[in-house]
């Protein structure tokens, strides 16, 4: 019986396999946010272009009011661009995850062909999207319950003028929110791999199965999520640190290169994070309960998943 335990190491292996997808993710992320970026830069450039190169010559608060003034008039288009970009990003994430999981299950060890993978992603987009939505709904519900409970306790502590318990509630609540979000995120990732199995079930059941896997393997799940999330966040923050530390970099076009490099690493980490839950499908590894045939290329196209709703 193959273990269905998530593995951070599996993430590294899958990243090697799906390296091109990492690049595709990176490029598509950029494309999704370019409109908002252009609006923002376009709005602020005229005003900022008139500033001296040495911003230290400005009086305190002057840059803030200039930026604020430049936003007037473009706030609405920017909101729309950001919202559209956010939706595109989310849609894209579902697409490539669907493609990645389907490819892995159905194409086995075949070299990844990006176009085909994305085609598979299109086919499997809707069920995988439902898994994600399930995760979001559960996450939102869990967080709402947590927040409600915390508010009740906070009000009690406030009425009793008990500051230490209030701080404990706030900190615990923050931790709880992070935990709920992390568990739901892991369950979603596990769920999309469960959904990719030939004997696929409904999206909701797949998510629940994913949750069960996470609860059965909490440490492994946490390690996978923490490691690859940290790599992704670390890459983005490292870019910021480098830019802040090397001012000349931030003032030149190389700054964009640094940001792009950080974003590429983040995209790679995102792919690895998905790959870390590949064992959850139960189809990979030294022994497979479904037999070695499941690790070879399938003869026909994968089911769309629509049959199972």
């Amino acid at each position, binding site marked *: 019986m193959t273990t269905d335990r998530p593995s951070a190491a599996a993430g590294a292996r899958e990243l090697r396999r799906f390296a091109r997808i990492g690049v595709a993710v990176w490029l598509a992320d950029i494309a999704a946010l370019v409109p908002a970026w252009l609006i923002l830069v376009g709005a602020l450039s005229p005003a900022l272009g008139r*500033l001296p190169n040495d911003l230290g010559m400005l009086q305190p608060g002057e840059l803030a*009011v*200039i930026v604020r003034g430049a936003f007037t008039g473009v706030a609405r288009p920017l909101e729309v661009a950001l919202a559209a*970009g956010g939706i595109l990003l989310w849609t894209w994430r579902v697409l490539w995850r669907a493609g990645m999981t389907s490819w892995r299950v159905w194409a086995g060890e075949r070299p990844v062909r990006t176009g085909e993978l994305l085609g598979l992603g299109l086919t499997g987009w809707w069920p995988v999207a439902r898994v994600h939505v399930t995760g979001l709904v559960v996450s939102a519900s869990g967080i709402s319950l947590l927040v409600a409970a915390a508010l009740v306790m906070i009000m009690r502590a406030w009425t009793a003028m008990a500051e230490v318990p209030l701080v404990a509630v706030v900190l615990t609540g923050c931790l709880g929110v992070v935990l709920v979000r992390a568990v739901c995120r892991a369950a979603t990732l596990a769920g999309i791999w469960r959904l990719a199995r030939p004997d696929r079930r409904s999206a909701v059941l797949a998510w629940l199965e994913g949750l069960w896997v996470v609860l059965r393997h909490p440490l492994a799940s946490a390690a996978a999520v923490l490691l690859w999330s940290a790599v992704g966040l670390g890459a983005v923050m490292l870019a910021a640190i480098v830019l802040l530390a090397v001012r000349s970099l931030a003032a030149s076009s190389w700054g964009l290169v640094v940001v792009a490099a950080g974003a590429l690493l983040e995209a790679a980490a995102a792919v690895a994070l998905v790959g870390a839950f590949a064992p959850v499908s139960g189809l990979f590894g030294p022994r497979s309960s479904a037999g070695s045939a499941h690790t070879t290329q399938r003869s026909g196209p994968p089911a769309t998943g629509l049959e199972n709703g």
Partner: protein
Amino acid sequence: MLVELDSGVLEAGDQVGLEPSLELHPGCNPPGRAADQARSAEAGALLGEVVLEPPHRGVPLGETLLGARVLGRQVHRAEVEAEGLLSGAGDKRRNGHQECDEVGSSDHATLHRRRTADGPLAIPRAPLKALPWLAALVVVAVALPSAAQTAAVGYDLKVVLDPVSHRIAGSGTVHWTNGSSNPTDELRMHLYLNAFRGPDTTFMREWTANGGTGRLDPWGGIELEALTTSDGTDLMPGLEMIQPDDGNPDDATVARVPLPRPLGPGQAVDLEMQFSAQLPELLARTGFAGDFHMVAQWFPKIGVLLDSGWSCHQFHASSEFFADFASWRVEVDVPEGWVVAGTGVELGELAGSKPGRRRVVLRADRVHDFAWCAAPSELMEVVETGFEPQRDVPPEWLAEARRRLGLSAAELELPPIHLRLILPRSQGPLTERMLRAVRLSVAWLGLWYGPYPYPQLTIVSPPLGAEGAAGMEYPTLITTGASLLEDVPPFSLEPWIEEVTVHEFAHQYFYGLVASNESEQAWLDEGLAEYVEDACLTAIVDDGLGTRRLLGWPWARERLALAGRRLPLTIDRRPWEFRHSGDYADASYSKTALALATVEGLVGRDRFARALRAYVTTWSFRHPTGADLEAALSGATDADLGWFFEQVVGADAVPDWAVLDVRSRRDEAGAVATVEGTTAADLDQAATASPRRYRLEVELGRIGDLIAPVEVELEFADGRIERRTWDGRARWVRWALDAESDLEAVTIDPDGVWMLETRRGDNRWRRHPSSGARVRLGTAAAWLGALAAMLVGG
């Protein structure tokens, strides 16, 4: 009988004497001729000369020496050489059977206190080495003919707090002198607590109109039960509530009391009164939350009689307070084991009104309000510490103040101050942070505006649930506010503790010393305190002494507040005349602070610093108006600021200039006309000049209504920089000029003097847009996008 110091200021070389007919407490006093002399009924028996060690000059006697006793340490060393008195003061072992508690000592003096169960406050004693015990009597009861100032107004009040019903019962006497030039046949009194009597008072109507709660549980209120003159004339029958501001019949925060006979200028009346009050649920500065009681505006307070008439306004949601400087003696009766903190200093304790209670005696001189708080010691703890100038004044601050003010280190020397911090026990981890903020505030304001003139500052951090009492100023007492969350990252990065502490301490100067009329010109204290807060916080951050500055904070906060407005604001309005509380806040705090920063830029930092210091020096213990501030700043800077105050303070003119257009034409023809002007005729005016290469036209516009001269900087391609002044009278101007090189940049207000201007994006023109800021923007935006992609994708 409580033997106390008379009010006054003790100066080195003063002659001190003893009030006659005092009952002196036996027991702690060693026998001797000194005691006999002290019991003499002769008025003004001369005891000797008081010598004070510098720099404690001119410090009110009651507050210093008794402060030393209460604080348990010697604040000042007083060597009293008394004539004909025995030497060898006794210590407690030598005082026979009486127990005396030693509370502090120094090389020269030891102060003792004796408590008795049934009565009089133990007389503080000062058996000084080689000095007679009578020095203690100097400490406790002294007439100072040369330096004594009879207070024009004095309150002697007793109050009992019932912590269960949250009611207070008060009584006392008031001495009031007509300090105006006109006689008056009435008194007007504030009964501020009646603002919380019900939902239809002026305060509560305005409060709810601004989105505040409309219900209190319980409501509050104050009832004046008896009011008589010292000769027994009952003033209650003629007492009536008046509503001079809005005629609201449901508002009873101002009482008019006819006097039996008119009181001429300089004449005084003594009143005796009894009152009771219900403290409301803590909403706005006063009330209770659980066992924490913040008791402010708790007694009938006489308004201010100016030459123009009574200034005694109703209590509005946005307005604060205005009263005469007075001397105060207040006995606060609370349950045993409760902490009491109040204005002034604690003289000591008396037995409470009944067993299980204690009575704390507080004293303050030359302050215009008196507030106090009380809470169980299980809830609140007291930290007694000090401001030590040698330790707490950053050397770089002293150096900068010396340089910019042109004063010597001796002239900038600050006295030590006792600090008394009352905070919830749960906020213990924040103690050092709070004290650091206080010490830096005392140092900053002391250096720039003169020493804090009182011996003690009390700081109260209200507990959780009592946030309504946070962020408020009273003479020698401030309330700050903190949360234990601020001890935990990332909440600890929030600089609220520093902001509120600096701001409220700044009020000790602007409001406490320079006692402008808060109820009519709130900007005079709030705006100045805000300006000082921003300047002090900037210095704290710049000198690495505190929290980090981010994105131009704190000045960016003020500028963004104004930038977000649709309608311009007039600063000089009465608080309740603003459209809503947001307008009041923007005008009184942000716009005023920015206006002062602008004046600073216009006249120069050093000149402004000296001018503001001179304003404080001139108007301490007085009631200036906005006109007085204008005159003080204009006079001290030799600059006529009338045009500024008229437009910025008295009206809502907004400064806003823009570079409308810049055109250049390269002229190859050789000699061309050299012209400057604003009309076509000017442009066509011919002149012979050496050959120029470029004909340039710069168009500037005045978008805002404020008319003021403004500097314009012209930067040429050959590196030359030229500054000109545009008077800004016309809506636009066109400068035509010939130059050897093209224009590279035009900047209106290049030094950023006009902090009030919130639309700055169009103040500049550049031929070749600078890349630095734009590239940084692009990079920052891209980074934000990467972060967003990570968060959304997860």
